[in-house]
């Protein structure tokens, strides 16, 4: 695959984002109408302020959409290239898995163990480090954070079976 090939043009990205704003604005307007966006017997109703806020989101997103459609040469430029998108996914996918591992209904690893694993995997695949470098860095960082949050500042973070084995719950 050509790394420099654009995935999407600036025009396409601008249009999609403007449309997303429009949908968001419409949702706000719709829910405000449901709550009542008028002048009630005891003053403005709950939806009064959000209604106009949503309306302004809609108006400005239509303006942005028109501007995106009317874009000249600049609209044809690449919003993101394949090589760039690949790098972003290489970071985003492990991040999502990492957050899922911290706590989920089936098996919660706890933030310390999941973070250690996350840093290690990142260093192994992206940094091409050997395990002799990876283990001290990843374990050392998280032991430091453990001391800082659990012991010094007494801010409890989600913990899993590993910490339980050491008697921290």
């Amino acid at each position, binding site marked *: 695959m050509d790394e420099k090939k654009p995935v999407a043009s600036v025009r396409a990205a601008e249009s999609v984002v403007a449309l997303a704003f429009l949908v968001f604005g419409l949702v706000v307007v719709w829910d405000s109408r449901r709550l009542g966006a008028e002048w009630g017997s005891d003053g403005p109703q709950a939806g009064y*302020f*959000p209604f106009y806020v949503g309306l302004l989101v809609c108006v400005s997103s239509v303006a942005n959409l028109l501007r995106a459609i009317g874009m000249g040469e600049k609209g044809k430029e690449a919003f993101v290239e394949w090589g760039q998108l690949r790098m972003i996914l290489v970071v985003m996918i492990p991040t999502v898995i990492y957050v899922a591992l911290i706590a989920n209904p089936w098996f919660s690893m706890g933030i310390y163990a999941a973070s250690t694993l996350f840093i290690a995997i990142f260093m192994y695949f992206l940094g091409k480090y050997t395990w002799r470098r990876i283990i001290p860095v990843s374990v050392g960082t998280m032991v430091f954070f453990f001391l800082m949050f659990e012991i010094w500042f007494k801010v409890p973070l*989600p913990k899993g079976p590993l910490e339980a084995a050491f008697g921290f719950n």
Partner: protein
Amino acid sequence: MEEIQSLIGGFAVALSWFNVALMLAGISLGVLIGVLPGLGGANGVAILLPLTFTMAQQPGGATSAIILLSCIYWGALFGGAITSILFNIPGEPWSVATTFDGYPLAQKGRAGAALTAAFSSSFVGALVAVILITFISPVIAKFALRFGPPEFFSVYLLTFCAFVGMSKGAPFKTVAAMMSGFALAAVGIDTVTGQLRLTFDIPELLKGFDFLIAVIGLFGIGEILLTIEEGLEFKGTRAKLDMKVVIETWKELPRYWRTSVRASFVGCMMGIVPGGATPASFMSYGLAKKMSKDGELFGTGMVEGVVAPETAAHAAGTSALLPMLTLGVPGSPTAAVLLGGLLIWGLQPGPLLFTEQKDFVWGLIASMYLGNIVGLIVVLTCVPLFAAILRVPFSIIAPVILVICAIGAYTVHNSMFDVWLMVAFGVLGYVFKKLDYPMAPLVLALVLGDRAEDSFRQSMLGSGGDLSVFFANGLVGTITGLSLLLLFWPLISQGIALLRDRHGNGGK
């Protein structure tokens, strides 16, 4: 000279061993945050805010907590200059103008001179702004005691109109981002009627969106994604900063006193208006270029070209705290996070702060003087150390920063949902940045949304739904008028340009 007396009292508060140690820790942490990609003033302070929850509970603890957080802010402001000069990467938007002459200077082998000039002029800019805060803010606070809901709403209006009028990009993008911030702020239980707004029966949405999560996601994760897109390499110049270079540069600096005065003035003026630090640095650079006798040489590595934007950016960044303290209206995302901290610690920012929390306010102002002196010493002595951190490969720094962001998001409310929200805001931040949607108005709207809505509703209640209450007297009318002028400024300036053009053509 009541202010001087209060200030001396403030120094007595700030000069305890514990607070000075916090200043040192805060500044060092702040420079580190400013230097690392993905961590900046706003999200750095947001991540560390939960650590101060217990500290602020103790008597006098709120002062220590704000000293720690504001020193992180000063540190981050100093740190931005290091990356701009050595690596041509502006750490914060207002450091962009510093790269114009700072990086060429570093390439010429004068990195030391550029850094010294940047730090010293930052210090000067901050000092001028702090002096301004010392003497002006009690006056403004006293004046603002007379404010009712319509006046407060008009000040909020001014804040938000300033963003639209001063934004460099498309005004409608600013409006869309800002209004989305207001809409997100409305999510949850309506404080007046108790009704659920925009929650769609999703239990997690009941408590609404916390702006700290938005700040960590938008500025933290978004920034990491942008950096990664550029590749994983940092290419920088080495920095050595010995006393000889520092003293030589200091001898050179007084020559640019005119630039410094101009830059401090521009910075203070623009800093009080929200979103002002970035335009202030560009404006100051432009002014210096136009008015200096070496103007043509700007961009090739002139010390004066570093002095101008750095002085203005620091003056603006510091004076952004003035409206936050006196009116409860923050001028920048970082000031907004500090304001959020005040609210969490149980302090009500605004004019009453100056009468009810004298120790806190004057302790903070005194710590601004001390913090900037400490900051100057720390950065001048530790540059090689901080630059070395930038040489740590990105494949180690990136996951550690992502972990820090996740922990920071979790600790705000001890909720995993917030961590997911942070990831979503991160993707949003990346898209926003690439398409030039401004993030600061969104964050400020999210912070001020409820308060702006309350003051709007109260004014409307008072007037029975008549919008003319915002022009009812001279004070509120002036602020509202000024807001509208700023709001339509892009149109007005276009109109003036058009008229001038036509006039010019007609003369031919």
